[in-house]
């Protein structure tokens, strides 16, 4: 039988919750397992509730799962916050002894393994910070986690701190295991999948995938201002891009960050910025300039809870409206949204290519959960990666150059500083084909239509939608971003149960792939659109184009945590004809 195990670690930020999870992740992929992580940081720098979750399987994994099989509770807060999920059949390893700040109740059917992790770390190892290792050691012993690979990943992380630190951590691991051997009896049958042949994978975090995708796409300039949860895109890119001849520029604010991106792109570079809602808000004016002057830009919005400063570390899909409609005036652009870490990488590459081809700003909408999710993805094959470059005139230097020539496609050949015979002045003013400012009605009409015409056939030129499930279904699910990966698991579960369910997974949200959505809607009796925002922003955007009002069921969470598959599954079952 397939093994599908989810282990959650909860505790106070700074207690090693996140790093314990990372070691498990490393070890599991070293052992050739499939893995997906889910993490949640507190808003505080130190303290606050942190969560790290690992789902391992010998099969392909779609989402973070519905809950957990095993909880490792480092403190009372972790226990309290997860108590409701401790259902019969789940397991809890928890801190006990002299350092513990809580004492759990007994819950019928829940298997409890008390481990004095704090006490062992403090008294026996004289190093309270090894508490997470003691816990790991206990878990390893209980669930057959390959200790060698665990040690290997610990060694890699701590080796630069010296052998003493590595050994101390090994000891803590062993102490945890020993405590289990001496004091506890395994009362359930959970265990990690068996180690198997190592696959040729990369272990990548969401934001890291954007950074790597950008590098692979030929990005040579990244201008940004730090903001949670986007900063790490730049962290990952800073040295990588230098080795590729590019640069990460930390600007004085987001306006400047995007301004430098516009300048660098105008000068010919492929550019990226990553930010979150507040940063996008500040960039709004210059995004409009990119649209008016037709300058390629890739803008990653790692969404967090809004409005305003909101919840910087929490999951939310509330910035879709802004991406599509935030700029003043009639302002065409492209909006993409990846569903998982692998898509983060490949859609980033697509974003660069679309930006170059259509000479336009392209949004990439990720979010705080996807930013931190770690997956083991297949090693990319660079020979299969395509690179688009903006069309330049390459004409004779003595031919008149019309930068904004109203071509049939709406895309006009451009020039790059340094190219002879291509000099032109870009402007945010309405302009004539030669780029000179002009406000007469005919020019205005010509240019407005040209700017929009570029995108007339984008849905056909680039198939931005996937579909799965029954050709004619009772319920069809449309979702976007991280929610897709969760909806997918729900849909597959229901189909396994024999329900006639289908799903549509648009990767491009704007311009809306209307044809594909129309066709999908026609093929199902009800449409469920689950989204992690209050308004149901994508549902509304679809409704404006496709009259699904009667078929539509919205499902929204806005609590700062992603959907779990079961919520979508249950909603579909609820609306499914009985």
């Amino acid at each position, binding site marked *: 039988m397939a093994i599908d195990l989810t282990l959650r670690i909860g505790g106070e930020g700074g207690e090693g919750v996140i790093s314990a999870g990372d070691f498990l992740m490393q070890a599991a992929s*070293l052992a050739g397992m499939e893995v997906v992580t889910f993490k949640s940081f507190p808003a505080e720098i130190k303290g606050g509730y942190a969560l790290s979750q690992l789902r391992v399987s010998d099969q392909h994994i779609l989402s973070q799962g519905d809950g957990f099989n095993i909880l490792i509770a480092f403190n009372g807060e972790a226990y309290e916050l997860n108590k409701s999920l401790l259902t019969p059949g789940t397991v809890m390893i928890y801190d006990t002894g002299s350092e513990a700040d809580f004492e759990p109740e007994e819950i019928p059917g829940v298997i409890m393994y008390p481990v004095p992790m704090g006490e062992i770390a403090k008294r026996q190892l004289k190093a309270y910070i090894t508490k997470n290792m003691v816990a790991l050691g206990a878990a390893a012993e209980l669930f057959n986690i390959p200790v060698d690979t665990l040690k290997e*990943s610990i060694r890699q992380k701590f080796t630069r701190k010296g052998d003493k630190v590595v050994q101390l951590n090994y000891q803590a691991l062993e102490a945890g295991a020993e405590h289990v051997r001496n004091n506890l009896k395994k009362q359930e049958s959970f265990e990690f999948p068996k180690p198997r042949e*190592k696959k*040729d*994978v*990369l*272990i*990548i975090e969401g934001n*890291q995938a954007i950074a*790597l995708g950008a*590098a*692979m796409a030929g990005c*040579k*300039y990244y*201008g940004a201002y730090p903001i949670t949860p986007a900063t790490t895109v730049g962290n990952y890119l800073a*040295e990588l891009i*230098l*080795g*590729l001849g590019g*640069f990460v*520029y930390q*600007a*004085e*604010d987001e*306006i*400047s960050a995007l*301004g*430098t*991106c*516009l*300048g*660098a*792109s*105008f*000068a*010919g*570079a492929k*550019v990226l910025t990553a930010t979150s809602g507040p940063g996008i808000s500040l960039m709004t*004016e*210059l995004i409009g300039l990119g649209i008016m002057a037709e300058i390629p830009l890739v803008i990653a919005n790692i969404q967090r809870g809004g409005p305003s400063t909101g919840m910087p570390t929490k999951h939310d899909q509330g910035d879709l409206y802004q991406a599509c409609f935030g700029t003043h005036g009639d302002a065409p652009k492209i909006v993409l949204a990846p569903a998982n870490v692998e898509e983060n990488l490949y859609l980033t590459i697509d974003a660069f290519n679309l930006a170059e081809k259509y000479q336009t700003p392209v949004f990439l909408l990720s979010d705080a959960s996807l930013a931190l999710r770690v997956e083991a993805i297949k*090693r*990319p094959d*660079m020979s299969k990666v395509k690179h688009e470059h903006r069309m330049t005139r390459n004409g004779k*230097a*003595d031919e*008149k*150059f019309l930068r904004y020539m109203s071509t049939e496609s709406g895309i006009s050949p451009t020039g790059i*500083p*340094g*190219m*002879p015979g*291509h*000099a032109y*002045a*870009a*402007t*945010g*003013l309405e302009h004539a084909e*030669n780029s000179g*400012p002009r406000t007469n009605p005919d020019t205005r009409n010509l240019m407005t239509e040209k700017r929009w015409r570029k995108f007339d056939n984008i849905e056909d030129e680039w198939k931005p939608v996937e579909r799965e499930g029954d050709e004619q279904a009772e319920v069809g699910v449309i979702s976007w971003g991280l929610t897709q990966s969760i909806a997918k698991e729900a849909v597959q579960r229901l189909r396994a149960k024999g329900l006639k369910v289908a799903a549509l997974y648009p990767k491009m949200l704007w311009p809306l792939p209307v044809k594909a959505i129309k066709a999908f809607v026609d093929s199902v009796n009800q449409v469920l659109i689950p989204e992690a925002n209050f308004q149901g922003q994508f549902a509304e955007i679809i409704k404006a184009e496709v009259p699904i009002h009667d078929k539509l069921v919205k499902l929204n969470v806005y609590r700062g945590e992603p959907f779990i598959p079961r919520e979508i599954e249950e909603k579909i079952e609820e609306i499914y004809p009985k």
Partner: protein
Amino acid sequence: MELLQTPIKPKEYRSEIESTWCPGCGDFGVTTALTNIMSQMQMDPDSVLTISGIGCSSRLPLWLRTFGFHSCHGRALPVAIGAKIANPDLNIFVTIGDGDMFSIGAGHVPHAARRNFDIKVFCMDNNMYALTKNQVSPTSRHKKKGSLSPYGTLDSPINPIELMITYGATFVAQSYTGSMKHTTAMMKAATEHKGFAFVNLLSPCPTFNHEETFKYYKPRIYDINEEGHKDLSNRMKALELSDRAMDHYQESGSDAKIPIGIFYKTEKPVFAENLAELKKSYSSAYGSADKPDWNKIFDQYAPQQ
């Protein structure tokens, strides 16, 4: 686009787009000076990028047959920085107004200056906002009237020269567009300087500003370099000099002289040099920057044993 003759004459640096400035606008002098300088230095117009924000003054790049970017209000410096980092070979002029630079763009200035980008900033200072029809700007004198402060502003002006020195600009000068000779000399010295160069150009707006006119400036102007200021890298001295640059704004000292000339000039590595050095130290990280060994990159993310 017409082929250029060698040597390239000043007027060949002008584009086909016609100026919309009022007759008598001080900014014409800046355009003329700039085309003169480019011609004198025989700059390849295709290697020049002229960047501006929004304002009367910021229209300047449109009149030039160089690459140009008439960006958004206050954002010329960030755009220039990005372009310069992406292509350090470009000759970058930033041609903007006092409002564009010191009001809405004020937050970018210290950071551009302290990083010493090799960019020439020519600020056409007409002591007010012209394009939006007469409001006070950060360089307006106390009590100046504007449409939003018809009673005379309560604000006191900033001192552009002093600020730029404090910010770390490596070349700081002032000129007056009524003197084409001096304007050209200052802009040329800035262009020849390696590093972040700033020239404040007192550039009257005959349409809206009836105080700081050519007539006002002419008798007040004096050339500090001619009158003895030679120790250009002495920062404290430059600050002292600049401290007096706005004396003519004081009601008590209304016939105070107005200094023009180079206040400050120093040598410091430019950003591009530091960056080039940094890049060099990373250049063989993946074989080569141009044709990297991608598997070497991917290996960094692979679980290792």
